[in-house]
């Protein structure tokens, strides 16, 4: 048997607490499953968390920083809590966990497509439209109505099979 000193460690408590913090714009998914937690570092004095924004201009970043700071302060694992915004690595929609994708689907959001050529879409590839699977009936007979939805990270689709409009968490 291997005994793991890490079990029940402060770092694990921090991760567990983070996984109970919902995304402010789509509360169905927590910040860990969304993939926006880049790293967690615990020392005697300080808990440091790197937050990877889904979109550079996401207006919820400040709210997330405040929420995470408050919740981790209440954990009392160190005197100081620091939540820093980072673009290293850049958040991509591939960072959403399998569980997170399922939670999005249950909440009526199509999860993003897996990226085949991450970040390298140029003028030439523009004819290729992203595909989304209807979160209500599972059909792929859907059309992109608007790549820009109610928040920066959401696109609007229409399902031809069940005739429902739905939103997709955008592929980036």
């Amino acid at each position, binding site marked *: 048997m291997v005994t793991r000193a890490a079990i029940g460690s402060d770092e694990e408590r921090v991760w567990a607490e983070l996984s109970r913090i919902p995304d402010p714009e789509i509360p169905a998914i927590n910040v860990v499953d969304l993939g926006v937690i880049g790293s967690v570092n615990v020392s005697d004095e300080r808990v440091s968390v790197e937050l990877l924004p889904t*979109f550079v201009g996401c207006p919820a970043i400040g709210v997330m920083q405040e929420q995470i700071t408050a919740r981790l302060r209440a954990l009392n694992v160190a005197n100081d809590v620091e939540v820093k915004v980072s*673009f290293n690595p*850049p958040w991509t929609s591939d960072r959403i966990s399998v569980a997170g994708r399922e939670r999005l689907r249950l909440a009526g959001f199509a999860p993003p497509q897996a990226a085949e050529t*991450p*970040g390298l879409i140029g*003028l030439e590839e523009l004819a290729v439209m992203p595909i989304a699977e209807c979160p209500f009936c599972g059909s792929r007979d859907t059309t992109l109505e608007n790549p*820009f939805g109610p928040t*920066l990270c959401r696109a*609007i689709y229409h399902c031809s099979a069940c005739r429902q409009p739905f939103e997709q968490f*955008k592929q980036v």
Partner: protein
Amino acid sequence: MAETPPIDATSREALAELLLSVADDEFVIGFWDSEWTGIAPMLEEDVATSSIAQDEIGHAKVLYELLAELTDDDADRIAFGRASDAFRHASLMNHARGDWAFSVARRYLYETADQVRLAALTGSTYEPLALLAGKMRREETYHLMHADTWLRRLADGGNAGRDRLSSSLECLWTDAQEIFAPLIGEETLVREGILPEPMRAMSITWQARVRPKLEPICGALPAATPSIDGRTRRTSDFAWLHGEFTSVARSEEAATW
């Protein structure tokens, strides 16, 4: 944010010019496009244009923060506390939003140029900028898709739209060059790899890419190159916009946000 690498005074000054030029481009086009919120030609466009404008202003915010960190300044002061003649956006952003075709024409010219610029900046030796450029580029792909769709839609949709688009492109073509206007200290930036390509080279890449798309719409476009004052010329249109976007900050100067 990654730790700022050590950088000498000359490079820092040049880098500050670069950051300011990109940030001001994004900030000012974002504000012009935000003027369509509520009055775009259709509901989907209202949402799309507002979302794109929000993206651009968000990009500017992070660029201003990088600049503030570099020069020991404050991002809000840089954005809202400068006089209009201290802005360094390209002349393309000096024009009022105009009609829908005019905004589409500007957005297309800007997005295509911005793609060339961002592609270069992802290779910057200044890591915070390279990382941010990589992230921005993924988002800008959607903007480019949007601009490209509208360009084709207006070009193929009948004479009224095509004529307006065509005259807007002709009107904006020269000022669009200024996105690649030479920067003060550019040689230093290129030598240090902070700017992986000279502006002039990017300008040539961009023209080769957009001329074949634009000339079937508006006929042969004149030979044009970036000019030395391409980022310092200001207009009364911009003076008006500057008054608008600084009005809240000016209303209560001592306020903290």
